């Protein structure tokens, strides 16, 4: 499995492959079930949870409505504090900025804090092409990187791996791993810590993302669980943070709300173990240089869409993944993007363009529209609404090209336009049903309906439709 995403098969095919992996499904079921229960418990103890969600939505909406103002303010404050702000229109620009900064620091390696934005732009691959080695320092990201694998969850990127698989991987791929390493989680963490500590102490450059960027103060915020982030943010000489433009919040006080919503929704904790915030540089303490790379990469296009823009409220908590019945069965790789699950299904097609590739066009359909995601989203993103909206864009992008589905939908619309046509179609369906039925049910069907009938019997259309019964027994028309 390669580390990059493009060229993945569309969701239905990738999902089929994932569904065949019983170990994966068992891992996912246990992991998502555990996080779901933890989240429900810590959310349940807050009587004001619904008000917090409304506040979170309002804060993000305010930031997005006047994003231009807040971004410029952020740039001013960061610059005042001794940082340097770079603006990147797309992944290529952002990667080029980072590569130049690492080279300017005279380094050929960086340590990395877990970051979605840098995965989105495939920074590690771009750095490797430029001869620079990136060391992921989050334990799960390290597991993914050592396995030349892809993350399958926003918060728990190695959710698809169990501990014996991780022990085998460490023994094989992690320099200095003890030969007698067991699959005891404490031993695994200790081995990783020893490996990473050498990197923290030697690396001159660190690359991070940020959970929030405060316009009012120019502060960046990273929340994490392991302390590796704190190491990266404080030990190296140069710190480069690649941050999506939608991460800005207007004021420092807004963090009061966001830092209550995020850990409870994400890890199911009241507060995460490490919260680091910083402004620019401080002589004699921490990095000597701080660079903030503000990344667009499709975000302004999403912002222009009146429904799609709600996805930019996302704070990457992954609560929607953990409750999603589709994600629970397919895992994250099937979504062909660093953003899996329900949020990925609406974010990825917007960042890439709904018609950019077969994966993006298939993602809005990777949902039953059950609404479990909307129910838990801490910033109230109506994901089902956005999904149907994006499905409309997928269909509109393909108008004029013939397809069996388009033909069928057009025919159905014509039939439904007149009750007489519909009644005639019902008689045809009843006739077809009588031909196919065996013992009151319809078994395996040919052609496009085989997808239904491979595992499911189909009902036989009734001998007498409701409207026929009504006209016979009640007579009058209304």
């Amino acid at each position, binding site marked *: 499995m390669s580390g990059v995403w493009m060229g993945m098969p569309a969701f239905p095919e990738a999902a089929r492959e994932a569904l065949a992996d019983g170990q994966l499904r068992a891992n996912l079921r246990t992991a998502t079930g555990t996080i779901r229960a933890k989240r429900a418990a810590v959310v349940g103890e807050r009587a004001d949870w619904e008000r917090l969600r409304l506040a979170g939505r309002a804060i993000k909406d305010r930031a997005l409505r006047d994003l231009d103002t807040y971004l410029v303010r952020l740039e001013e404050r960061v610059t005042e504090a001794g940082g340097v702000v770079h603006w990147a229109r797309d992944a290529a620009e952002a990667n080029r900025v980072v590569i130049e900064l690492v080279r300017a620091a005279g380094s050929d390696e960086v340590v990395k804090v877990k970051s979605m934005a840098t995965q989105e732009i495939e920074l590690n691959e771009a750095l490797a092409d430029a001869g620079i080695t990136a060391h992921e320092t989050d334990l799960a990201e390290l597991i993914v990187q050592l396995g030349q694998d892809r993350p399958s969850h926003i918060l728990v990127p190695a959710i698809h791996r169990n501990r014996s698989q991780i022990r085998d991987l460490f023994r094989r791929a992690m320099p200095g791993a003890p030969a007698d390493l067991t699959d005891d989680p404490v031993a695994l963490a200790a081995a990783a810590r020893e490996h990473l500590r050498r990197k923290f102490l030697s690396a001159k450059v660190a690359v991070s993302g940020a959970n929030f960027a405060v316009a009012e103060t120019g502060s960046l915020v990273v929340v994490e669980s392991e302390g590796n982030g704190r190491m990266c943010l404080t030990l190296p000489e140069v710190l480069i943070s690649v941050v999506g433009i939608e991460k800005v919040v207007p004021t420092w006080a807004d963090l009061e709300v966001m830092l209550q919503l995020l850990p409870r929704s994400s890890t199911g904790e009241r507060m995460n173990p490490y919260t680091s915030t910083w402004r620019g540089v401080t002589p004699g303490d921490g990095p000597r240089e701080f660079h903030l790379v503000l990344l667009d990469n499709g975000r302004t296009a999403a912002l222009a869409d009146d429904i799609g823009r709600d996805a930019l409220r996302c704070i990457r908590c992954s609560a929607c993944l953990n409750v999603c019945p589709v994600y629970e069965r397919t895992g994250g790789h099937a979504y062909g993007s660093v953003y899996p699950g329900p949020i990925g299904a609406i974010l990825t097609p917007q960042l890439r363009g709904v018609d950019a590739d077969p994966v993006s066009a298939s993602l809005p359909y990777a949902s039953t529209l059950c609404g479990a995601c909307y129910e838990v989203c801490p910033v109230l993103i109506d994901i089902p609404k956005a999904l149907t909206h994006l499905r409309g864009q997928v269909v509109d992008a393909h108008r004029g090209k013939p397809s069996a589905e388009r033909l069928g939908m057009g025919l159905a619309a014509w039939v*439904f336009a007149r009750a007489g046509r519909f009644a005639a179609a019902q008689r045809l369906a009843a006739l077809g049903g009588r031909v196919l039925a065996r013992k009151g049910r319809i078994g395996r069907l040919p052609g496009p309906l085989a997808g239904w009938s491979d595992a499911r019997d189909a009902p036989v259309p009734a001998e007498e439709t409701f*409207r026929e019964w009504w006209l016979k027994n009640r007579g009058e028309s209304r």
Partner: protein
Amino acid sequence: MRVGLFVTCFNDTLFPASARAVVRVLERLGHDVVFPVTQTCCGQMHFNTGYQRECVPLVRKFVDDFAGIDHVVSPSASCVAMVREFHPRVAEIARDAGLARAVADTSPRVREFTEFLVDVLGVTDVGAAFPHRVTYHPTCHGLRTLGLADRPTRLLRAVRGLRLVDLPEAEQCCGFGGTFALKNADTSVAMGADKSRHVRETGAEVLAAVDNSCLMHVGGLLSRQRSGVRVMHVAEILASGEGP
């Protein structure tokens, strides 16, 4: 009371017994059911699959077909959710202020059957008898979009002889999802397989719900597995027995 029946194209063709059951229960309770015969489809399939332009004439037709009826009742939570939640959106897409006004007038008058019984008629005991072990699956549109909560189970608990048993992980989606069941058939079946396993675990003879579409999916699996479990719309259970 004069009550309009929105049968839904799906029930009309495949599950007319559920619609007849709605008529039977309402008439038994002394109400006058009318059926606008010009009705066809609310547009849910088109809308949810992305054919939103094709959906516009269907919404226009819907508001015409049900104009002037104070209470409209339907044995499908997902079609009612389409009417209440997304008809306004279709009018927005059509950029038609007249249609938006018509939708704003029609949509709130459309209610799912159990919602109508409990909220409008104030009835939980419809005088039904059904001496069987039943488990109930809350379908997603009923549970999350319409917020039916315990209305269907309050009605079921009042049925003579009915033993209602809890369904494990009841609130998880069954995997039907309209065209999802075909477009993502493997995932749909994987979800449905877990749902049908939970249904079998209850030992129930009957799986009940307020959406025949979800029941067609789970029932199709239960039938293929020769499980012996029947699926039934809640309305059909409420119509059984002699009545009040």
